[in-house]
C-alpha cells in the first residue's frame, strides 16, 4: 500500500466557542413525517435529537460560530447565554465524536 507512506493521522474535532459548525455532507436532518419527528440520518444510524437540538442544528450551516448560535438561542428561549452555550457545546461535541460535524472556521468544509 503505497499511500500509507503519506498517511497523516486524523485528529478529533474539539468544539469551542469559535467553531463554525455544520453537518457533514453525508448527515441529513430529515423530517420523518410518518412518526411526526425530526431525525438525523447518518451512516447506519438514526439519531433523534430533541426539539432544542433540532433548533441548534438548523443554525449549523457553517456561516456562524457556536458563540453566535448561543446568543441567538438565548434570545429565542429567554435563557442564560452561558447555560445555552454549554449545552450546545456538549451536543455538538457528542455529534462531532460520531463524525457528523465539520468546522468551517478551520477550513474544513467537506
Amino acid at each position, binding site marked *: *500500500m503505497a*499511500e*500509507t507512506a503519506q*498517511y497523516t*493521522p*486524523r*485528529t*478529533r*474535532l474539539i468544539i469551542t466557542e469559535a467553531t463554525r459548525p455544520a453537518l*457533514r*455532507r*453525508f448527515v*441529513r436532518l*430529515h423530517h*420523518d*413525517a*410518518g*412518526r411526526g419527528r425530526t*431525525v438525523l*440520518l*447518518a*451512516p*447506519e444510524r*438514526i439519531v433523534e435529537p430533541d426539539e432544542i437540538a433540532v433548533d441548534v442544528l438548523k443554525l449549523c450551516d457553517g456561516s456562524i460560530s457556536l458563540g453566535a448560535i448561543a446568543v441567538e438561542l438565548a434570545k429565542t428561549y429567554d435563557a442564560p447565554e452561558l447555560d445555552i452555550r454549554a449545552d450546545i457545546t456538549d451536543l455538538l461535541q457528542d455529534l*462531532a*465524536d*460520531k*463524525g457528523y460535524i465539520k468546522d468551517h472556521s478551520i477550513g474544513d468544509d*467537506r
Partner: protein
Amino acid sequence: MVMIDESTARAEIICANAPEGMLAELTHRCPLQCAYCSNPIELERVNHEMTTAEWKSVFTQAAEMGVLQIHLSGGEPTLRTDLEEIVAHTSALGLYSNLITAAVTIDRARLARLVDCGLDHVQISFQDADPENSNRIGNIKGGFDKKIAVAGWLAEMDVPLTVNAPMHRQNIDNLEAVIDLAERLGAIRLEVAHVQYYGWALKNRAALMPTYAQTMRSAEIVARAQERLKGIMGIDFVVPDYYALTPKPCMGGWASRFLNVTPSGKVLPCHAAESIAGLKFDNVRERRLRDIWMDSTAFNAFRGTEWMREPCRTCDRREIDFGGCRCQAFAVTGNAANADPACAKSSFNLGLVAMAEREAETAPPPFVYRRFQKAVV
C-alpha cells in the same frame, strides 16, 4: 360521534410501528465465497431475482410505511446492472442509502455514477488486513487490492466509508492490524463483528470458532482502540455470543425493528430466518410489504413475548434481550421457541460452550466455501 379518517389512522399506526431500516438482498450472486456468509445455504438463483420495476415498487412501499434507511446488499449488489436506477429511485424517495459491498467488482466510473445517483454511504467488507489471508478467506484472487482501491476512491469523492471486518479464529490475531487498516483508509466507522453461527457459518463452525482467550483479547483490543480513536473512527463490536452469559437482543426483537427482502421477494424478519424449518415467508410479488410486516404468520410467530416458554417467559430480561436469537435456538436446540442456547439459563448452554471450546482447541478443518451448487452435508 368521533370522526376518524380510517386510512389516515391506519397509516399513522403503520409508520409508528414500522422498521426504520430495511435490508435489500438484491442478488445472492457473489464473487466471494466466505465460509460464514449470512446468505442461506439454499441460495436464490439469478432467474428468480426480482426485476428493476419490482424492486422499485418495494422501495416505494418501504418509504410509504416509514422505512428511513435502505441497506443495499447481496450477495454482491454491484452485480445488478440496474443498481444506478435503484439508487436513484431510493434517493428520490428520500431514503438514506447504504451500499454493502465486497468492492471487488466496481470501477471508479461506476462508483462515481452511483454517487451522482444519490448514494449516501458505502460499507466494504475486509476479510483480513493481511492481503493473502483476506483473499484465501474470500476465495478470490486479487480481491484485497481492489478493496483498497475502492476505499481510496471513496475518500477522494468524500463518501463516508464503513469497514466491516467479520472476526473468527482464522483472522482474529490480526485484529490490531485490521483496526489500523480501517483508520488509514479514512473509515468513519469500523464494525468488528464476530461471526454468528447459523447457515454457512454453522456448517463451518469448527473452522471459525475462536478460543475463549482469543475472544476476550479481541474485546480488550477493541476497548483500547475505541478510547484511542474517539472522535476519529467509531468502532462497533459484535461479540461471539457462545462465550457470553446473556444472549444478544437479536434484531431488537423478532419483527420489531428490522425487515429483510430476499432477491426473489421473500420478506424475512432477519436475514437468517429461512434457516428455521416450518416457517412460511410471504412474498412482495404477492402481498404488499406493509401487510406482510403487520400481519403475516412468520412475522407474528415470535413477535412480543407471548410465544415465550420457560426460562424466557418469567425472565426479567425478556424485554431486554427478547430470548436472544430464534435462528440459533432452532439450530442448536431444534425448537425456535426455546431460549437462545447462548443464555446461561438455557439447558443447552453448558453443552454449547463445551463444544465451542473443544472445536476452537482442535486444528481447523478446511472451509466449506459458500457456493451455488448443493452443499455437501
